Structures are given as structure tokens and as C-alpha cells.
């Protein structure tokens, strides 16, 4: 019966259009989480060891099949769509702010960057990388933005907890001291 569960897991992964949460497997298969989780890990390792053209990844709170990154050049030849246009520096900054400080209001983004960023926010929302959420699900509350599940998926993150601590990106003490010196009125 374990073999069968494994088979059904693979079939489910084949028809899924989003990362599938562990809970979905549990419900469909009516088996305990621990067992299914073990099977998913086993499958992932299996594909890896057998050098398959697909990989199983746990991202954005679920499991999904992806093509192996080594195959990307051939797939680009097959599907032009995947040559994505790159984001501007401004867009990446806003995306980082929303990932680390979100959910937050547009006005807060503007304030953090010291420049009006509504256009960039709109572009990111249209690309599905960020989305509007409402505080406490009440209507009439302030409209806040947060990163989307699609963003997590694209980044290969399971949740926002997997983001590296922001402190890693801070300029080092030396650079800060230098900035400070240059800003001092007595400089």
C-alpha cells in the first residue's frame, strides 16, 4: 500500500498547478502527515539520484515538480516565454522592501526609498510578484502590499522565514562611519 501512496503522490504532482501543501496529500490519501512527508522526501531524493530531468521542490509552502535547472538552455529553445525580462534596480529594491517589511502601505515604501514608487509597485503587482492584502481582512482598512506565493516560488523559498537576515546586507561599520563623517557639519 505504501507503493500505491507513492504512485498517487506522483500522479497528484503531475496534475497540480500550484505547489501542493502536505495537507492536500493527507486529505486525498487519508494517511498521516509523517508518512506522506517521508514519501515526498524519498521521491525528491530518488529523482535527484536517478538524474531525472525533473526535480521535486518544497517551495511556497508546498511541493511541486520543476524541470532540472541544467535543462534550462534546451527548454528556452523550446519555449521562448521563459526568457524573462529582468527587473530594474528600483523594482528589485521595492521587492526587497516588501519582502522584509511587508505587509506595508505604499506610502511606507515611498518613505523608505525617499521617492515616489507607485509605478514600480504597480508593475510588480502586475507581474504577480507582490499583491494587495488587507489588514485583518476588513474592508475599508488601509491597502497593504506583501510578496505573493509566486514570488516565494520563484525565489525557491518555502516561507518568508527563509529570507537571510537583513543585517547581512547592511553596509559594514567602516562604510557607515565614512558616511557619517561625510554628513557631519564639521567635516
Amino acid at each position: 500500500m505504501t507503493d500505491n501512496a507513492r504512485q498517487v503522490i506522483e500522479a497528484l504532482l503531475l496534475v497540480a498547478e500550484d505547489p501542493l501543501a502536505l495537507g492536500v496529500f493527507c486529505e486525498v490519501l487519508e494517511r498521516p502527515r509523517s508518512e506522506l512527508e517521508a514519501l515526498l522526501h524519498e521521491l525528491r531524493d530518488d529523482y535527484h539520484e536517478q538524474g531525472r530531468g525533473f526535480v521535486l521542490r518544497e517551495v511556497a509552502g508546498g511541493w511541486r515538480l520543476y524541470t532540472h535547472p541544467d535543462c534550462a538552455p534546451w527548454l528556452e529553445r523550446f519555449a521562448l516565454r521563459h526568457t524573462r525580462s529582468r527587473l530594474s534596480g528600483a523594482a528589485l529594491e521595492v521587492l526587497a522592501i516588501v519582502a522584509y517589511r511587508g505587509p506595508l502601505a505604499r506610502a511606507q515604501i515611498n518613505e523608505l526609498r525617499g521617492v515616489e514608487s507607485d509605478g514600480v509597485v504597480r508593475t510588480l503587482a502586475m507581474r504577480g510578484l507582490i499583491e494587495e492584502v488587507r489588514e485583518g481582512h476588513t474592508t475599508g482598512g488601509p491597502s497593504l502590499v506583501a510578496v505573493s506565493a509566486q514570488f516565494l516560488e520563484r525565489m525557491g523559498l518555502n516561507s518568508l522565514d527563509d529570507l537571510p537576515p537583513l543585517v547581512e546586507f547592511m553596509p559594514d561599520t567602516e562604510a557607515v562611519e565614512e558616511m557619517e563623517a561625510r554628513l557631519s557639519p564639521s567635516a
Partner: protein
Amino acid sequence: MVYEVRQEAFEGPLDLLLHLITKQRVDIYDVSLAEITQEYLDAVAGRPHLDLNATTGFLVVAATLLELKSARLLPSPAPEGADAQLLEERDLLLARLVECATFREAGAWVSAGLDRGGAYIPREVGLEPQLMHLAPDLLGRTTVVDLASAAGLVLAPRVTPRLDTSHVVPLRGSVKDAIVELAGALAAASKLSFRDLCGDRPEPADVVVRFLALLELFKAGAVDLGQADRFGDIDATWTGEVGAEEVLIELDDLVTATGGDS
């Protein structure tokens, strides 16, 4: 001192300030506002039209610099209080700059992550036909806005990665063609406005090419130019003294003489 203040390169005053400070090229209190202003005006003068966003952005930058500078230059009547206030302002500004630099760095990390993630292509084929009828209503919570957003993205002009060919002069042939074309039109009508000469071609590149062609014709003495008022339409009158052929020969000579790098 050379300042590299290009409006399009900076996203607001914090960005500019961060650049000026981290480049270690200038002390912000030494920044010559007059020079920055002149450089900016030069850049604006070369643009086909004035970008309101960039212009107001510049005003914010200039005002920020002016504020910082005046705070430093003005003698303070009550040194202690003023110093404390200045220090406080400085700390606030410093904190914002550090934040700005941090998120820029984080953005670079996000960029690398998105690139890496882009190499993984998800399976998104979905249910097989025989199961399709079991799935809930496909439109579900899809709104008109979702639809329009999808259309906006997929129908927007596609950004294709391309070689930077800006060092190649792309319009020379077109200018020649335009000279022949304009000379023909002017010889027939004897007098035409620039607007007429551009005809129904609203493309900025075409307008530029025609303008350059008109200047060449003027330089060679083939046309006379007149402009009734500032920003008004330009009238071109065919002098009949020089033909298009001669203008072209002259242009070729010029190109050869300057090593083809006009």
C-alpha cells in the same frame, strides 16, 4: 571638479546622496549647485520633450542639497541647540541612507534568487481532460481587473535582450534618404513647413532624421529656413541654387574627411 549627475540614473534624493557620499568623490557641502543645475539644464535641452517627473525629481534633489548646505553655511545664533538639532538631523539622514544601502544590497540578492529560480520551470499542465469536468468553475474569483492585468502584461511591448549598438551611427543612410525626399518635395512645392515635411510620421526618430536632413540642405544653401516665433513651426523655402545631388556629395566628403565618425 567633475560631477556625474545624470537625472535618469538616480531614483530620488536619497539615491543621489548615497551616490555622492559613497563615491567619496565629493563632500556634499562642496557640491556646486550651480554646476549641477547647469548640467541638468544641458541634459534637458537635448531632450525631445520635457519629462515632468524627472524635472520635479530634480527640484527635490536640489532642494535637499540646498537645505543641507544652508544648514552648514548659516551662522547659528545659539550654537549648542543648533548643533544638537543638526546632529539629530544628521543621524536621521544617516539612518535612512544606511537603510537605503541595505535594501539595495537585498535587492541584488533578490535578483540573483529570481535568476536562479527562473531556471526551474514548473509543471503547469493541470488536469487531464477526463477529469476537467470535475474541477470547480474555472473563472472562480477571476475579476475583470485580473483579466486586464494579464492582457496588459502579455500585450505590452516586449523587452528583448539586445546588443548595445549605440556606438554605431544608425541613421546616416536614413538622413541621406530624407535629403533626397525633402529636396524632391521642396523643389515641387517651393515652400513647406517642417510640420508638413514630417507628414504623418509621428515617430521621434523620423522627425530627428528629417530635421538633420533639413539642416544639411540649409548648410548647403539648398533651402532657406525661417521661424516666425519661438517654438513655432519652421518654414523651409527651396532656393533652387543647389540640388539634392550636390548636398549628398558634400555630405559624403564630410563623412570621409572626418573618418566616418560624424
